[in-house]
């Protein structure tokens, strides 16, 4: 069959992107009305994970630093929210910006050594942070509830009366709004001067530095933003699960986030959506295959994805798209000319698959 070639930025390409985006939006909005409350809950959790994966991807994918400490930031966000709601009667929506700020600051402080530590050593330091988090939570029991954890009564998180939505649908849309905001912000960030500076640092730090990019400032900033994303995901987790305990935020969570990021697609904003779906649904179906060996199945799936699509699901997605249509970059624009329009098909379309 004759394949069409779409050139980025042309009207044809833009309409295709627009059409697919609209379709995606319809599917995403309709999903909670089509599926059961339980499925809606699962989609909501997938979005929560996607935010955390995106945060990690900003750090690792765009700046090349590896963090094994994101389970702790996730936990700090969740705990901040629950403590404020339960012990201080703060309206739950207000806890989101507070927790985001707390995690941003925590990330900033942890990020300072990032000035000196690179790659593996940063990973090591953040690993320590992840390991220390649960014992610290237990140690400061009067504040955190200690080993028993803390829960939010369901009445606190109920949908407002004026909304014709069930609690599950309400939480779904609440999380969806946060997802849209944070993903838009991330796209903006990676295309900004900051994003380009980070990529330059990641790809080759020394020449980038000689060109006037000051590594410390950018690295610390991106670490803080990344921690903030994880923290916000933690807040939303607390809204949905309504229970936090030290056992919920172990090192294994940080490792799974890392795996989901790579499996979704490094250095792609949309890949985080795949990552979130991966965390939520792959273990769920792995258990269907063999209950006793579910982690064997899960591990094998990770390996298989990496062998078949080393670039992650985003690579697989592009391959499938290329079966239908070629997407080409516009001819090189001479220096000084207007920059090419920004939207790319690859970044837009995955929204369609979210609710799948």
């Amino acid at each position: 069959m004759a394949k069409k070639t779409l050139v980025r930025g042309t009207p044809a390409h833009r309409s295709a992107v627009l059409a697919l985006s609209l379709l995606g939006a319809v599917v995403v909005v309709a999903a909670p009305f089509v599926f059961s409350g339980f499925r809606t809950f699962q989609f909501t959790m997938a979005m929560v994970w996607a935010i955390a994966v995106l945060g990690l991807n900003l750090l690792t994918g765009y700046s090349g630093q590896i963090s094994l400490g994101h389970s702790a930031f996730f936990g700090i966000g969740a705990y901040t929210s629950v403590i404020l709601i339960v012990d201080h009667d703060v309206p739950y929506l207000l806890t989101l910006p507070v927790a985001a700020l707390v995690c941003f600051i925590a990330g900033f402080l942890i990020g300072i050594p990032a000035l000196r530590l690179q790659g593996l050593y940063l990973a090591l330091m953040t690993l320590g942070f992840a390991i220390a988090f649960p014992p610290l939570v237990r140690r400061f029991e009067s504040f955190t509830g200690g080993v028993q954890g803390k829960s939010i009564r369901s009445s606190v998180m109920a949908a407002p009366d004026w909304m014709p939505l069930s609690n599950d649908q309400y939480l779904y849309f609440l999380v969806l709004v946060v997802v849209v905001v944070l993903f838009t912000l991330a796209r903006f960030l990676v295309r900004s001067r900051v994003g380009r500076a980070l990529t330059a640092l990641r790809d080759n730090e020394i020449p980038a530095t000689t060109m006037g990019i000051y590594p410390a400032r950018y690295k610390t900033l991106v670490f803080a933003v990344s921690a903030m994303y994880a923290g916000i995901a933690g807040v939303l987790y607390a809204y949905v699960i309504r229970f936090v305990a030290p056992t919920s935020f172990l090192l294994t969570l940080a490792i799974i986030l890392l795996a989901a990021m790579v499996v979704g697609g490094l250095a792609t904003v949309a890949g985080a959506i795949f990552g979130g779906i991966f965390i939520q649904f792959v273990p769920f179906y792995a258990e269907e295959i063999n209950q006793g060996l579910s982690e064997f199945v899960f591990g094998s799936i990770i390996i298989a994805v990496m062998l078949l699509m080393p670039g992650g699901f985003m690579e697989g997605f592009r391959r499938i798209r290329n079966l239908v249509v070629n997407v080409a970059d516009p001819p090189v624009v001479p220096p000084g000319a207007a920059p090419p329009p920004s939207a790319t098909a690859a970044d837009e379309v995955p929204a369609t698959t979210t609710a799948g």
Partner: protein
Amino acid sequence: MERFIQLVFDGIATGSIYSLVALAIVLIYRSTGLKNLAQGEMAMFSAFVAWQFHAWGLGIWLAAVLAIIASFIGGMALQRVIIRPVQDKSLLTVVIVTLGLFLAFNSLAGGIWGYIIKAFPPLFPSNVISMGAVRVPVANIGVFMVLVVLAGGLAMMFKFTKIGLAMRAVAYNMETSKLVGIRVNNVLMLGWGLACALGAAAGIFVAPKLFLDPFMMFGVLIYAIAAAAFGGLDSPFGAVLAGLIIGVVENLAGSYIGFIGSDLKILVPLFLIVVTLLFRPQGLLGHKYVVRV
């Protein structure tokens, strides 16, 4: 004083365990340039294999040797089938593949042998040496000796053998190594095989102390990674020294610093490591590489 000495001896014993696994991590890093997250789980799996051979009636030393050989072959097979296809991709891709191996080996061991702990037959006499109130089990000394021998052997191999040289070359720069005629793929495969054999030895020697179950190496791996990084990823003696320091320091901190207590003692070595790395990023005994732009 006796308390202090006892804690130091205990620390050296635990530190030997960290060091053994750290050695395998160093070996694989030095021969292939990779970090293998599954190192601990593969060691655990090998220990189970040895346990199984023993359960089938073989003597424990024979079972251990067979398991180490099987691990050598298995490691080469893994490299050929699973690692080679992704070895040219990003480092993180390979690390995630080893994470997949981690989950798979852990779950598989549980599926085959169950989750009830098993006594691993002792490889050393089980008596205890008394020096006043200080007690040192002979097995702890045995593990320490094994550690010294393996670390020494590894260092000699890298330094004095042709294959060791080839491994270092490949890890340092794969492309250049090809140009000078090194069979890169064979060297990488051999590196994995040796690392798995070493890991198997580590698993087998620590199993009598830790007790064998699929989660035996879970905690050890964290310390071993820390030790490997602390010591300098490319230095066998660095890894050994770092593992021992971590073992001793966390024991002393847990006992003598009231606020730390046993629940937060892991933070002390980690803190120590970070501070060290801030001033000596290549690790205690690691080599510093000059980067050309």
